[in-house]
């Protein structure tokens, strides 16, 4: 008796509770779906969510920049969230599926195509030249954020492929630093010659492990890694030829693959074991941090060139700003993007933390340190070698790049031949492309 009555009371409570939950879900679902009326973004009280990836230092910069923004537009409140790079994308992928992307995002080039083609990013066209000032940004840079004819991202800053050298280490070891440029064979010869004179230090790392070096060779021949419609711009024979160029140093003067595995996750250059490394020019600050004393300055020179006079290098956006297509406050979000991209104040806060500012107005405000000025001068010095940016990376480019790096590492360890490497790369690339 007693138990039955108790049970029905509990049962009733449970039904009411679950009904409340369901109704609650519907009610707020309706509210969420109502689009915001177009209102003056400088008056309306709005709250924006902003997400970025980065470390402690960058978070401090963003906090400062967002405070400045909120001072200028007191009606807008910006809540920021930040994570490391892989976690940032893990969270965004699920938010994208659930329809809850932050209003404004710091964005990576390699995800632009996927998010744009799925209609997750707002078309910035109506705001360009209006809320978002484009007078300080070159057309070349603006074209970077265009996918399928629609502008969905604005580059904050640019990077170029370059070669870092360590003149202080070279002096300690009593060898000459690599002057930059030359042909890839010249560079190989230099590595072999320098490493031959040294014990426990090397001229450089096997550069055929990086897809970017392959890319600039293809660009020197007038091609690209991938075409606009996502097909590879090279065949097996061309890739084999590339990997064979590394034979001369792989069994000679390049730092052995085993040594690299021992010191991972830092590179041979980070560990002051090699004198040169080819990479994006914004890696300088990271190198200085990992090298520590006494290596307080670095050299930044042109990479070797495959075909003399080629326009093989290009400016890559180190990151972009995008707005979620589902935002309730597109005007306010555009105001924030404009501020983050153009404001000289933001320039003075960030310096080159996000790369060399793409907008001239922002660059003018940036206080460039020694390394920053070096990067600016480097990007100016390679103007003759800068060509048009390649098509926006295909979906899955990140995985392809990583596969290339892994196979390169195995070549360095001597566990596979270049022929096997080519076969494996094409198999894995086809799997990624067909997805």
């Amino acid at each position, binding site marked *: 008796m007693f138990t039955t009555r108790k049970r029905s009371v509990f049962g009733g409570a449970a039904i009411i509770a679950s009904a409340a939950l369901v109704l609650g879900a519907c009610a707020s679902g309706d509210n969420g779906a109502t689009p915001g009326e177009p209102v003056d973004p400088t008056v309306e009280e709005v709250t924006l969510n902003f997400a970025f990836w980065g*470390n402690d230092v960058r978070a401090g910069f963003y906090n400062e920049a967002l405070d400045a923004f909120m001072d200028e537009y007191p009606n807008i409140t910006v*809540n920021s969230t930040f*994570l*490391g790079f892989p976690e940032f994308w893990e*969270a965004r992928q699920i938010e994208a599926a659930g329809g809850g992307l932050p209003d404004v995002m710091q964005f990576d080039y390699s995800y632009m195509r996927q998010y744009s083609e799925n209609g997750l990013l707002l078309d910035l066209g109506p705001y360009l030249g209006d809320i978002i000032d484009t007078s300080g940004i070159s057309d070349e840079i603006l074209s970077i954020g265009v996918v399928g004819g629609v502008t969905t991202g604005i580059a904050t800053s640019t990077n170029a492929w370059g070669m870092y050298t360590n003149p202080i280490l070279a002096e300690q070891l009593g060898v000459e630093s690599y002057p930059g440029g030359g042909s890839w064979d010249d560079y190989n010869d230099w590595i072999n010659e320098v490493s031959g004179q040294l014990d426990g230090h090397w001229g450089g790392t096997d550069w055929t492990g990086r897809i970017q070096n392959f890319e600039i060779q293809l660009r020197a021949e007038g091609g690209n890694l991938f075409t606009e419609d996502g097909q590879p711009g090279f065949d097996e024979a061309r890739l084999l030829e590339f990997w064979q160029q590394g034979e001369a140093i792989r069994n000679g003067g390049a730092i052995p693959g085993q040594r690299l595995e021992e010191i991972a996750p830092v590179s041979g250059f980070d560990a002051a074991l090699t004198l040169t490394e080819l990479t994006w020019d914004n890696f300088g*600050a990271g190198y200085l941090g990992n090298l520590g004393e006494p290596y307080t300055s670095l050299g930044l020179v042109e990479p070797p060139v495959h075909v003399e006079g080629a326009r093989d290098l290009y400016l890559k956006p180190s990151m972009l700003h995008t707005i979620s297509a589902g935002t309730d406050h597109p005007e306010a979000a555009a105001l924030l993007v404009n501020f983050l991209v153009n404001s000289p104040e933001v320039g003075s806060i960030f310096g080159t933390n996000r790369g060399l500012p793409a907008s001239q107005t922002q660059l003018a405000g940036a206080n460039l340190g020694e390394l920053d000025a070096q990067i600016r001068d480097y990007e100016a010095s390679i103007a003759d070698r800068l060509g048009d940016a390649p098509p926006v990376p295909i979906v899955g480019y990140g995985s392809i790049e990583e596969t290339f790096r892994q196979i390169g590492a195995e070549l360095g360890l001597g566990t596979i031949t270049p022929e096997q490497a080519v076969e494996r790369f094409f198999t894995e690339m086809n799997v990624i492309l067909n997805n």
Partner: protein
Amino acid sequence: MTAVMREPLDTTSLRTATGPNLNIERGNHRLRRRIVRIIWGVVLVVLTAIILYPLVWLFVSTFKPSSEFGQNPGLIPNNPTIDNYIKVVDGIAGVPLWRFFANSIFIAVMAVIGTLFSSALAAYAFARIRFKFVGVFFAAMIGTLLLPFHVIIIPQYIIFQRLDLIDTYVPLLIGKFLATEAFFVFLIVQFIRGIPREMDEAARIDGAGHARTFVSIILPLIKPALITSAIFSFIWTWNDFLGPLLYVNSPEKYPLPVALRLYNDTTSTSDYGATVAVSFLALVPILLFFIVFQRFLVDGVATQGLKG
């Protein structure tokens, strides 16, 4: 650990007890046995040292300056420093480190309370009350164990997002209060089934209803199962990464596992010194928790054996 430490104690007490009147043959035998034991001891210590080496390396490396990583992969730092700890305690992006600890502890403690409370109630119902479709419900609950987290994560995210509960701890904790952790419910159900029904019946004859039976009879008897659940629930919640990653956005609300990753940004400068220091600090509470509660865990298993 404790077993190894007890071993030598036992042998000494045995030896002194029989010491005065032993004959030579037995002495030889004992000596040989002792040598074998010592060899075993040494082998075990060496094995333990090998297994623990990563942990020791982690601890010692917290005293390496950041730039030494990569240049010195060995155990001993060249230029020992405590800068890593000083830096780490300052926290990240204006949020002090203790805040992340406090968040993690809050979430973990709430999760333990919620799990114990709701799982015990649910388990009691499954084990003792014959309501309609009990078999179906029980099977459905066990079925949820087979669902990988990634399958339900997107619909779950949509629900909490529509309810406007993002950036609160509610999505992380509400499930724990609603007995969705089927593993613990199952564990406790099995435990309750081992308790003789006569005890319930005796209580019922004395006029106790379900509530009274649960509180006064069952709850005290399932203590070992509750302790086991508490330990696992604490450790799992403490280490949970994906949940907080999705549902918590403000850095000042991050628990430790999420905050940990902020020290290691692969796209710019990674502060390896700070990463290892904070990783080590994050291990300490869970290590302490386990050391304190493992005694209860062992006791729990022992009592469960007696009941059988």
